[in-house]
């Protein structure tokens, strides 16, 4: 599951704005003292690298750390696997896989086009579906833990808390100590500490969560019930994926979105298609521009969940809903409280830790921030891109920098996907952002489309709905962004992410051969279209 706070986009831009000017000084201050510290601390440490947080980000950092021959410890805080594995991407895929099959097998019209008929009613066992999700999470968690121990990473059970030299002196001396909150033992890092504490669901004020009738994604993934009618507050990735699960299992859904548009974080054109494919043709309605100002849990069978909605602008009451359940999917906030950040002089903004482009922690957001030596922060806690694989990439990047090889993650080349049926996937900015960027940077934006309706494989699957949109720089030919909605979009985006990362041009891509007949040809059509060629 991709966690995206409605405000993240805003935050990310703030972040990049302040990183740029401080980069020069930060780089200078980091490299010089590092060597001297190495010398002074020699022989008096527990590990080369200590990682706080054992989610996908911390895991990625730990694996790379070991591959570089660094002795490594990771603080799990009792949560090996973190949000992604235990309460996010992984179990939600299990729910989507199971519910997707139910949807497919109940779609009589669609099946009859294949010449298939399902006799009788397709049923499911809610507990069985929930168990599949739980078992998958446990298994992936076991694999993840196994890979850590196999590679010689020491897992510290407790939660890691930074120990400062006192009086917030971190900025001067660097931070090298982490305390196990459970045992009280203090571990020392020879080189660096990587913070990867992750995030927790955000619950807006006025919303009471009982995790039974009113729940966040944490509770939703347990699938304690399949409500007749569920309200989903927030129409980002999480909300959209759960609407897919719920409607497939027979629920009706009402989205409550605070912003004026449904699916506000998506490219508008994609959002419009998504609205048709994922909302309009399903038992879903929505309210936009309203806050769920007061959400009171219910008691199943006795009293419904009450949701009072107010206008986002005027704050006047507009409507009250009485539903069976409410899911709060209004984004996520960093899990950075009480981990000793203040004690080493790190100020957070709404919980987010400021980092530079090399993932080094800054004392604060904005131009006044300076690099805190030897401390890195990756993943959701820095708010740059709240995606599991982004966290992992940042972790690997941090290790590269720790090893003295300057590395910066190109966030424009990190793909993202929403695993609805059909899927939505993207890499790079939205068209709206790309237009702005092109105007600001003085290049011409080109746009080319491929369609699933014209794709043999998609037609064979009777899944002709969807489109792929390639945005590119007309002068250089380089791919700027790709947005796909359609069957298996999440698997199709990789080629595009690689192209963005490698700076491949549409001219080059248009000459690369795509397998026939595959869904990839949707992209082939778009690449060829960009250079005035016809694919079919």
């Amino acid at each position, binding site marked *: 599951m991709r966690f995206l706070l409605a405000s993240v986009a805003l935050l990310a831009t703030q972040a990049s704005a302040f990183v740029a000017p401080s980069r020069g000084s930060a780089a200078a201050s980091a490299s010089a003292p590092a060597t001297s510290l190495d010398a002074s601390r020699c022989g008096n440490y527990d590990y080369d690298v200590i990682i706080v947080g054992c989610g996908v980000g911390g895991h990625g950092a730990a694996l790379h750390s070991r591959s570089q021959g660094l002795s490594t410890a990771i603080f799990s805080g009792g949560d090996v696997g973190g949000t992604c594995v235990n309460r996010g991407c992984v179990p939600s895929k299990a729910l989507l896989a199971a519910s997707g099959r139910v949807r497919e097998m109940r779609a009589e019209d669609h099946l009859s086009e294949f010449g298939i008929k399902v006799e009788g009613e397709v049923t499911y066992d809610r507990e069985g579906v929930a168990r599949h999700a739980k078992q998958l999470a446990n298994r992936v968690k076991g694999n993840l833990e196994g890979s850590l121990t196999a590679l010689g990473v020491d897992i510290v059970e407790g939660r890691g808390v930074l120990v400062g030299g006192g009086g917030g002196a971190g900025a001067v001396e660097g931070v090298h100590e982490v305390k196990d909150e459970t045992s009280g033992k203090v571990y020392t890092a020879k080189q660096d500490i990587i913070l990867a504490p992750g995030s927790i669901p955000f619950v807006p004020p006025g919303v009471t969560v009982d995790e039974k009738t009113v729940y966040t994604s944490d509770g939703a993934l347990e699938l304690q019930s399949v409500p007749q*009618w569920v309200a989903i507050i927030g129409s980002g990735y999480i909300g959209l994926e759960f609407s897919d699960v719920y409607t497939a299992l027979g629920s009706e859904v009402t989205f409550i979105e605070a912003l004026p548009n449904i699916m506000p974080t998506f490219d508008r054109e994609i959002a419009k298609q998504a609205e*048709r494919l994922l909302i309009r043709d399903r038992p879903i309605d929505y309210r936009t521009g309203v806050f769920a100002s007061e959400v009171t849990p219910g008691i199943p069978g006795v009293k419904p969940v009450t949701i009072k909605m107010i206008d986002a602008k005027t704050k006047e009451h507009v409507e*009250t*809903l*009485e539903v069976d359940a409410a899911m709060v999917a209004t984004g996520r906030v960093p899990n950075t409280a009480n981990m000793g950040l203040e004690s080493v002089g790190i100020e957070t903004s709404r919980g987010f830790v400021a980092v530079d482009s090399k993932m080094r922690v800054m004392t604060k957001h904005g131009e006044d921030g300076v690099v805190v030596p030897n401390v890195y922060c990756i993943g959701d806690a820095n708010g740059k891109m709240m995606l599991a694989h982004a966290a992992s990439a940042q972790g690997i990047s941090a290790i590269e920098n720790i090893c003295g090889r300057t590395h910066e993650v190109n966030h424009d080349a990190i793909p993202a996907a929403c695993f609805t049926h059909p899927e939505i996937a993207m890499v790079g900015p939205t068209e709206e952002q790309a237009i702005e960027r092109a105007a600001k940077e003085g290049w011409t934006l080109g746009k080319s489309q491929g*369609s*699933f*309706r014209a794709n043999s494989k998609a037609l064979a699957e009777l899944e002709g709905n969807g489109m792929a949109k390639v945005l590119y720089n007309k002068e250089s030919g380089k791919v700027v962004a790709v947005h796909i909605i359609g069957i298996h979009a999440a698997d199709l985006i990789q080629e595009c992410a690689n192209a963005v990362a490698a700076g491949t041009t549409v001219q080059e891509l248009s000459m690369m051969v795509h397998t026939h007949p595959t869904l990839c040809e949707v992209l082939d059509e778009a690449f060829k279209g960009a250079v005035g060629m016809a694919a079919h």
Partner: protein
Amino acid sequence: MKFIAGISSTTALICLLSWTDPNSASAFVPSSSSSSLSSSSSSFVGYARNDASVVVEPNARARRETSLNAEAIKITMPALSSTMKEGRVVTWLKSEGDEIEAGEAIMVVESDKADMDVEAFEDGYLAKILTQEGETAEVGAVVALVAALQGDIASIAEGGGGGDEPGGAAAASAPIAAEASPAATAAAGGGGGAAPDVEFSRLDMPALSSTMKEGKVVSWLKSEGDAVEAGEAIMVVESDKADMDVEAFEDGIIAAIITQEGEAAAVGSPVALIAANEADVPALKAYAAILAGGGGSPPPPPASAAAVAAPPAAKAAPKAAAASAASAGGRVVASPMAKAMADEMGIDISTVVGTGPDGRITASDVQNAAMSPPAGAAAKKPAAAKVPSWTPAAGVIAATPTARALAKKAKLDLATIAGTGEFGRVTADDVRMATGEMKPKKKSVVPGGGGPAPVELPEGLVPFTGMQRAVSNNMEKTLDCPVFRASREIEMDAFNELYQQVKPKGVTVSALLAKAVAKALEKHPIVNSSYRKEGTFFNKDINIAMAVAIDGGLITPVLKNANERGVLDLGEDWKGLVDKAKTGTLKPDEYNSGTFTISNMGMFGISQFDAILPSGQGGILAVAGTQEYIVPCKQAVLGMKKISKMTVTLTCDHRQIYGADAALFLKTFSEIMMSPKSLV
């Protein structure tokens, strides 16, 4: 929304202006729709229209002008694929001088991808073929000339111009014009009077891709009467590439939907009318009905589109009438906001008391009404709801999203529908029940429940299939025939023993039965005869028909000359016939050439039955199941033994076959069955 520019035919527009009232014509053309008005062609259309001849003028003066301009309609080589540069005319399906109708295939063109029929786009007469069969023409080149009027054929064929000899041609064509083109005249007349003098815009089928010829309206996101804003998605159109939302380009109210959901319309043809003012909706509805019929639409759509467009026209008309009647009856004055809100909240706006100027219902009136629902509705709800323990809070609409959407579409007040969902909420099924779309589940007769769920039984008329119809007709025919029946019990032990012996060789009961009956018929040809008015017709061949129940019907494949053939041969033949019967591939000769029929229900354990005699045959033998009996037997140890018996019943046509014939036949048959060695 995109419009394809098409081939803008200026002449058509000018003509239009010349015979329509200038005011109404301008109403036609609010800037944005003017291009779509004249855009009739996508890249596939094989016509460059030269339009003076399209419009038949209703008065003499105008007609003379037309004739003066009587130019040819040009048929050009169409682009049948995006890569096609030139096309070869494979065949002309029409000859010079032939009358052609819009939508009729007139030539076959070979492109780089395939051979395709090219259809005429307008009615007329093929005046001159310029590209002969086998010749090639570039895309866009003129391959033939079409005259709108028969009288113009000669002049067009000669000079291609037609306007050279005004006097004679005009005089000659005048009566023919009136005769030959009543449709066009009607169209012109209708068009002239149709466009109402009100502010509206036309929503045309947009070209969503360069290759799109027509689009199917997948769904309307707005209903007639709904307010739309510029930029708002109002329908989903399926093109050859993708389903896409089509947005309104102006604010207004959807006055009339011309192309219904699931129907297709040609690119550029009108699919809906959007009124600027609500008061104009009835007038536009009437106009839409004319447009849907193709009458007032200046660019005639291709035949395929016209064909699908026709039915809605008929539908639209009564609807329009009903709508205007309703608005005349109890007109509700409410602000658009109030209406939208009432719709949203599922409140019947006619029940809301207006407090605005002149009693107009305002948004806050609707809100107040929602907060304090009318006493009737409040009293009704708890009584009807199955889950009465929960009373929704004030202002809460207890209905699921789908229920709301359905109720809105059906224009039902949710408050009048009893909810059966959680907390007494109205569900989609409740609404469907209220609209009659769904039937309530049959209540269990047994009170208290607890027993097994009631079986879902089919209900209502199911039309006969072709086979079922044939069976029922044949059965009715048999009522003219006087029949009698004779039954006999036959001991089956010997037969069963033989069957067990020959079964491994692949001999079947059906084959043995057919053979035994055929053998008996050999000795009693009268039972194999047919009744004729003149006398008894003896059939030379013994063809045994046997009834087979197949899915949804009954058929009687025939084993021909069964008396002369071996049982193995018969068995194999029979297997093939049954397979053919199941796949519906029996030839008539294989099921209607029987001279005698066997109906065997032995395998179902039937103890005795009689069959209806098929007309044209003399007899039918109903074969029941074998049953075991204990009979006295002096030789046996206990003085009794166990035997197997089967009852057969012969039905005969008494007009030529008598009781004794039947009795003797059954006796012979019984003997054969009791010493069956001769069968194999």
